């Protein structure tokens, strides 16, 4: 009995999640479908953070920067040549300083030859964010006390990125990059399917990784890098590469996001957005497979449904919720759910063993 329930739990939740994804367009209005489509890339971002935090005990305050960076690159590629963005207009006012190499780069990205190849809009953000992530990763893991310094170094990355993005008129400066077309035509529903398919693929890959030997090694690297090193694994390199994989995934999330939202702004690179992403995960329960999905949907839904009615009180509620999660449900909503399930299971089985 007990064994059965335990074995069934994983496929059952997966099936339920799949069913929910499939049902969204059928039961909700087109607007709501579009809205949820906009949240799905955030789930990908949350997965990229879970890969670090849940599995490797690294907190990043800089993932917003990679999300934004990926979004900008994909956005420029998707939008193609355009003369009349705010950025271009602002450049009209430039004080004769000439065009920077960065402007040329932006132009190259949005030139007709390469823009509009949707595949590139995925590949390039992933590659660029991954490379930058690798660099940052090597910095972080050179220092001891990773748990303490990683948040601080990534915080610095976020601050620099947000400042620099704001400074660049070619990507819209403070006005952001807007008018980005979706990857697929056909309205919110097809955008939803497109994004959901990506999310599904990423989720399956993530689930497979977590169960694989590589996934176990990755968890071990966060648990005790010195021990793992002494077993012959180059933990520092492993973690730097894992960090890069995570930032690449964040870049991919950004690329997906601009295809849905049509817009990317520099504050996304800042600390507040990155912390917001951590909150999704905290609410979901870091380290659990469904935490990213559950966390993003719960917080965003709450935000969407409650913020208009409650306004300032909603924010207050969010803060209280966060404290409640930390104190009352350190393994997040998914943790609550599984201890609920365990309680149900105990009802079916005999009294628990005390020893062992």
């Amino acid at each position, binding site marked *: 009995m007990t064994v059965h329930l335990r074995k069934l739990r994983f496929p059952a939740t997966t099936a339920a999640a799949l069913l929910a994804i499939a049902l969204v367009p059928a039961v909700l209005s087109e607007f709501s479908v579009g809205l949820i489509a906009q949240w799905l890339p955030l789930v990908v971002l949350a997965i990229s953070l879970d890969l670090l935090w849940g599995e490797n005990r690294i907190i990043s305050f800089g993932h917003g920067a990679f999300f934004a960076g990926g979004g900008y690159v994909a956005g420029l590629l998707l939008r193609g040549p355009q003369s009349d963005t705010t950025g271009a207009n602002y450049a009209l006012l430039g004080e004769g300083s000439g065009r920077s190499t960065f402007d040329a780069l932006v132009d190259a990205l949005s030139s007709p030859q390469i823009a509009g190849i949707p595949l590139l809009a995925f590949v390039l953000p992933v590659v660029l964010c991954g490379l930058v992530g690798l660099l940052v990763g090597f910095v972080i893991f050179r220092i001891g006390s990773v748990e303490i310094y990683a948040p601080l170094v990534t915080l610095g990355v976020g601050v620099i990125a947000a400042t620099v993005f704001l400074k660049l008129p070619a990507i819209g400066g403070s006005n952001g990059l807007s008018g980005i077309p979706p990857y697929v035509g056909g309205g919110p529903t097809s955008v939803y399917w497109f994004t959901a398919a990506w999310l599904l693929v990423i989720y399956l890959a993530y689930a497979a990784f977590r169960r694989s030997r590589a996934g176990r090694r990755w968890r*071990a690297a966060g648990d005790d890098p*010195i*021990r793992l090193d*002494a077993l012959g694994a180059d933990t520092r390199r492993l973690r730097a590469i894992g960090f890069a994989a995570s930032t690449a995934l964040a870049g991919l999330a950004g690329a997906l996001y601009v295809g849905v939202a049509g817009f990317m702004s520099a504050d996304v690179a800042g600390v507040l957005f990155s912390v917001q992403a951590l909150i999704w995960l905290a609410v979901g329960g870091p380290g659990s497979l469904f935490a990213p999905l559950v966390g993003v949907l719960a917080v965003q839904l709450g935000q969407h449904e409650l913020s208009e009615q409650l306004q300032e009180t909603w924010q207050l509620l969010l803060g209280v919720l966060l404290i409640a999660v930390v104190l009352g449900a350190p393994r997040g909503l998914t943790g609550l759910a599984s201890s609920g399930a365990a309680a149900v299971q105990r009802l079916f089985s005999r009294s628990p063993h005390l020893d062992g």
Partner: protein
Amino acid sequence: MKLELLPDTLAPGPGPGPGPGPAPALAPTPTARPRPRTRREGGTLTCEGVSVAFGPTVVLDDVSLDLRAGEVHVLIGPNGAGKTTLANVISGHVVAQSGTVTLNGRFLAGRPHARARRGLGRKFQIPRVFPRLTVREQLELAAPRADIGPLRTQLDEVGDVPGEELSHGWRQWVELQMVLLQRPSVIVLDEPTAGMPRSDRGRLAERLEAVAHGTFLVVEHDLDFVARVADRVSFMHNGRLVRTGTFDEVTDDPVVRSAYLGTSAHGR
């Protein structure tokens, strides 16, 4: 009546028999194990003129050590003599100011993982296990293809317990198994018997004998155990390697007696 130890369970030898008598010896009277043992394969490790200082504190002073293939070499010495530091130099956790380490005839350098890949195993003095992996997962991580059949009884007990919930002694055990399962050619064990019950020490000694391939450098304070496993013993004192020889030769040395063994040597 006070409890007495029965030394003959450890090794044959003279000693007070059971029953009332004079106050029993506090420490057992260790005796070196019978030798020679059948020779086995194993790596070689040489330290040449290793010196380490932290700021003004000299911790290792021109230490040279030579491990023969297949032997069990035990390092003893007072607390703070530099034994762990020497182990750290070998495994790459401490960078020596001068001196070289050679493994199987080639210089050993680089970070710990590179040394581990060349066949160097290491158990730490403070046991290190992976908190979130179960015991079974830890062993599998260390050596995916190793045969864990002989460990079945222990795994039945703790196989599914995550590292963070292990008691101190079990942590020692798990870490030791991780290292041994990897079958390194040279294995550095820092106080492997700490926290182990007596019978397990005996079993560990048997295990070390039974290992088919491997050279051991063991740091130990349990003379009983040392006597049983050591082919050779080196004595360290104040950062210097003072003396190397058989167990009896070293423990008979008056310097070793006064600096390390204390009154426990009186029983001999």
